[in-house]
């Protein structure tokens, strides 16, 4: 059997997002893209501003943006635990764009403290990531 399914579980603090049998999953980790198929070796990597592409056994694909988390693969299942996980079709593009603009405006200000700058930068990165995932999947 070439490609059987395996169990994928994705959870975030907003609730269980995915618990399904999938054929493959592509994850953008901090170390680069990783494709996971059945019988992958044990593997752990972190995700900062990444994307995830899930292929279901019937061949349908779904893209999602996934931020601040990690992926853990073992013999029985693949687990992705993240702060944010949103399917591309659930992303509110307008909100992401607004957030991007306001973060950019904030960064253009002078006299920001280090914390404020870091906060605005991470907001900008999150918004950019959402927009990118949205565009890749539409």
């Amino acid at each position, binding site marked *: 059997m070439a490609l059987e399914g395996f169990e994928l*579980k994705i*959870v*975030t*603090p*907003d*609730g*269980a997002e995915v618990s399904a049998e999938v054929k493959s999953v592509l994850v953008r*980790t*901090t*170390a*680069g893209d*990783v494709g996971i198929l059945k019988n992958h*070796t*044990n*593997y*752990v*990597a*972190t995700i900062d501003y990444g994307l995830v592409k899930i292929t279901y056994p019937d061949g349908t694909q779904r893209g999602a943006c996934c931020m*601040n*988390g*990690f992926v*853990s693969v*073992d*013999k029985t299942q693949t*687990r992705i*635990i993240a*702060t944010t996980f949103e399917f591309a079709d659930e992303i509110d593009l307008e909100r992401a764009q607004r957030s991007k603009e306001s973060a950019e405006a904030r960064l253009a200000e002078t006299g920001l403290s280090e914390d404020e700058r870091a906060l605005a930068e991470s907001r900008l990165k999150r918004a950019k990531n959402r927009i990118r995932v949205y565009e890749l999947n539409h």
Partner: protein
Amino acid sequence: MAGANMKAIKSRIKSVESTMSITKAMELVASSKLRRAKMQEETVKPYYRMLADTISDIIRTTGEKNTFIRETDESAPACYLVIAGDRGLAGGYNNNLFRLVKERIHDGDCVIPVGKKSVDHYARQPYEVLTTDFPLAASVGIPESHEIGDVICRNFEAGRIGRVFVVFTEFRSMLTQEPQILPLLPLDRDALNRTKADTDTQDTGTPKILSPDTIYEPTPEAVLSAIIPQYVSGMIYGAVCEAAASEFAARRTAMNAANKNADEMISALTLKYNRARQTMITQEITEIIAGSDAL
């Protein structure tokens, strides 16, 4: 005099009634807040359960050791993150938690109080308080959990504290809430193996053995140092959500009992009032009859 007695009883009934209208309103508010808190608790539960499971699997298979992954040093100063409520009138909710901490805490240990009641309580205790930046348990969300996690990780790395416990009230059901002390740091491989072996044998009859040849990208140190703070703040957020649901459930139960007591008091007082009224009428009749006899 029966008249004065009647007046006293009447005003007592009035005061009980007004207290009851407050407790009734509080019960309703607690019920509706409980519904929301319970929903949140149910959404978060799978997240932090899986987070704890995954971290425990990773720690048990990795050969790495760092500040966070080591054997528990029982003599090291401990830090208790005490998550209590912002308000009283919730039965034993806050005090049960403080009592549990009191049994465990030693001199030289420190506390991070979350919630107004907790902050107030530990201001009067001889233990060092690391931060009072979180006086409102209700406003602790994901970003605040990260901040608390930051404080803990920083102090832990600096060696200021050697053990970290999360103290919160676990939401078992609408009627039972159990205060809990959960060890958070350090991640002790042997201790994790022991608890894991227990649950595994319960589930399947045989302990699960994981192969140690896990690939970490980019490096084991980088991965672990990135996910451990996530684990800490994720567990804190989970505990805060549990505690919130427990608080409202405890308050609802307490207010329900208060309403019942008020009801009982009112009916007892009404009986007393009617008796006094009857006595007074009887007395008046006796007096009138006695008066007309005298004529």
